[in-house]
């Protein structure tokens, strides 16, 4: 549905400027179902973000007791019962894949759910608007005050607003750094100015970005900076539900009085009374009646605004609602509405999420806490000893991912006469070298395998190294080759 545009509304200069000034938006206060949903989701999202670092999780002595911690100094990521090492970064890949597909699934079901309710840009902008409204008043007041210019009271209000904004922004940056160190300790250090410089720098950066993005850039981020609206437009289909003005019901827009007269005379007029409430509440300053568009973050606030008006004038609510073009056309043709949630794409997305999730759960539950990697010497590949036997050298790395110190023995399987020696370690347990590894550590060992001259070996023979926990019996193994000169 395209509104006819009068030439006077257009950019009057044909050689118009290459850039336009940001049009300031004064969203009006609104209440209703979607506003309530947005408040609840904002509280949940911000609550998680601000308070998660303070959640404790006991991992035993010597290990951090913070539930979520990115320990960059020690290369560890802790997430409740999970502890990840740098080489397990693929779990993050899996999480990112799932996140992307969930985004696609939400999009094919309810359009830009992410943009409207969950995106940090939306959440913080919404919070900043709430502060603005509380301090400066609602839409009309703000527009009036802005037009009147600076008075003492206005200056005081602006100071208060920006102070609150900066405090929220500072808290946002502060919460961020708490994910990278023990939160209570870092808090204490921050207050006493004992914290590392990098913590203050990051708080500064995030205070700045939060303040600027949520206080000033706002909808500009969504319209000009964010790639998702462009990708979303390419990913959506005609069945996806979007915040839609049902023009089949709304047009022709007619004022309340004229509509009564027209209806009395038996003429057909639309339910839209052109009150512009949907425009007044919109946080990106658009008119939803122009149809689905890039700048619409689909927050649903126009639905609340329109419903309020419709209720007041005694008409059916949801003149604006989650709907799609297919149903608009069906209604215009007098057919019943159809909603198809189960479609090829929603099924595929769901299956993909399940598959990736299942793979991740499987690998997570089956990952070993004892691991070994072996690397054959490159130079020399093989050494002939004075009695004619052949020796190969390997670099072995044993990983103890458990929170306890462990004692492991090392053995080799391969040619029958193969003997194993670990440099700096005596063979003690049943003639196998035993090594102790500290909790949560890796140990690099130099391992030598010797095969007697009587054995007639191929140029390359597979050998298998086994590392065995002497207490629990847990085994980790790695395969390599034994090479002759």
């Amino acid at each position: 549905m395209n509104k006819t545009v009068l030439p006077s509304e257009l950019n009057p200069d044909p050689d118009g400027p290459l850039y336009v000034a940001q049009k300031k938006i004064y969203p009006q206060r609104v209440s209703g179902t979607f506003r309530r949903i947005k408040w609840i989701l904002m509280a949940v999202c911000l609550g998680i973000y601000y308070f998660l670092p303070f959640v404790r999780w006991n991992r035993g002595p010597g290990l951090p007791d913070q539930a979520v911690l990115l320990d960059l100094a020690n290369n560890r990521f802790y997430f409740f019962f999970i502890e990840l090492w740098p080489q397990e970064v693929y779990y993050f890949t899996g999480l990112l894949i799932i996140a992307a597909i969930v985004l696609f699934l939400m999009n094919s079901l309810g359009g830009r759910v992410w943009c409207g309710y969950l995106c940090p840009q939306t959440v913080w902008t919404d919070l900043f608007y709430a502060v603005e409204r509380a301090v400066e008043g609602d839409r009309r007041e703000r527009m009036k005050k802005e037009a009147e210019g600076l008075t003492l009271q206005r200056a005081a209000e602006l100071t208060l607003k920006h102070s609150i904004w900066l405090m929220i922004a500072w808290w946002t940056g502060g919460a961020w750094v708490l994910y990278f160190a023990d939160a209570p300790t870092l808090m204490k250090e921050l207050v006493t100015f004992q914290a590392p410089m990098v913590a203050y720098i990051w708080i500064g950066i995030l205070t700045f970005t939060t303040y600027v993005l949520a206080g000033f850039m706002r909808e500009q981020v969504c319209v000009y900076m964010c790639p998702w609206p462009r990708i979303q437009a390419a990913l959506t289909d005609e069945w996806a539900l979007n915040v839609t003005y049902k023009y089949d019901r709304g047009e022709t827009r007619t004022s309340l009085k004229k509509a009564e007269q027209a209806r009395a005379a038996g003429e057909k007029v639309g339910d839209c009374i052109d009150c512009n409430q949907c425009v007044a509440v919109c946080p990106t300053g658009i008119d939803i009646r122009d149809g689905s568009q890039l700048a619409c973050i689909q927050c649903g606030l126009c639905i609340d605004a329109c419903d309020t008006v419709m209720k007041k004038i005694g008409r059916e609510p949801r003149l604006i609602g989650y709907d799609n073009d297919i149903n608009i056309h069906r209604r215009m043709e007098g057919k019943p509405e159809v909603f198809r949630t189960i479609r090829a794409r929603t099924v595929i997305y769901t299956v993909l999420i399940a598959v990736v999730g299942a793979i991740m759960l499987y690998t997570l539950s089956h990952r070993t806490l004892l691991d070994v990697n072996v690397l054959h010497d490159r130079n020399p590949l093989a050494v002939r000893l004075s009695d004619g036997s052949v020796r190969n050298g390997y670099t072995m790395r044993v990983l103890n991912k458990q929170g306890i110190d462990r004692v492991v023995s090392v053995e080799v399987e391969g040619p029958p006469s193969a003997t194993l020696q670990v440099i700096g370690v005596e063979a003690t347990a049943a003639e196998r070298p035993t090594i102790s590894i500290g909790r949560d550590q890796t140990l690099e060992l130099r391992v030598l395998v010797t095969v007697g001259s009587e054995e007639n070996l191929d140029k390359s023979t597979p050998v298998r190294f086994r590392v065995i926990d002497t207490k629990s019996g847990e085994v980790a193994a790695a395969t390599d080759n034994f090479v002759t000169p």
Partner: protein
Amino acid sequence: MNMADHAPHGELDKVTGRTTTGHEWDGIQELNTPLPRWWVWTFYATIVWSIAYWIVYPAWPLVKDHTTGWFNYSSRADVAVELAKLDAIRGGKMAALSTASLEDIQKDPALLAMARAKGKAVFGDNCAPCHGTGATGSKGFPNLNDDDWLWGGSLDQIMKTIRFGARSGHAEAHEGQMLAFGKEGVLKPDEIVTVANYVRSLSGLPTRPGFDKAAGEKLFTENCVACHGEDAKGNPELGAPNLTDKIWLYGSDEATIIETVTNGRAGVMPSWEGRLDTGTIKAMAVYVHSLGGGK
């Protein structure tokens, strides 16, 4: 593309109700969608930033030099600072390396790892030209991976060899020379052939047809046992190699052994005492010992 079909600039697009830029490609016109003004400001800001960067940091090449910037910043100086920090961190452990005994270094896993890492680096810088990066040696330069040692393979013996070298001129260097039996006229050419074949027989290598083993043994006993020992297993005090094993420094073929007996051998290894500090030499000794052949 046909830019010739230039539509009138600023024509009204009926579908969107917006003006166009006047650019047209195959009938498709471009809508005039102005950039937000802050975007342009951001662009100008980057220009200002780049000018500031030229002033603050070294940026412009001059004929022989370059502009140094306000703070005389240099990434090379940064590296020097970082290296100094690293030295400060390593200071304690390096001190431990030079004071701890070789056995203690080998017993302490942390010190052992440190010594092996350092030894490997220092070996690459100083020893690899002769012994090879993998310490595999070559003809005349011993392979340090195997268990055959001219001057002994214990930690202390390896350390001594590194410190003073062999025939290096240092007062405490390993000395010991193989006589040039042929050149000096001690043995006649046919006697040299005989003793060479006898030496080959000691490690089970095939001998020349008609070789007189008894004559060879007699020649060996008269001329060679003084250094190589009665069992021919060599003597690390003199650097005399074991002649019964499978490892040959110069080669085991008859011609090479004849050459060795005729001209003698006296390989030289330099002394590293004074050139490298004690901690470094210890690290190198531990590293060489850990290659696998250490006794």
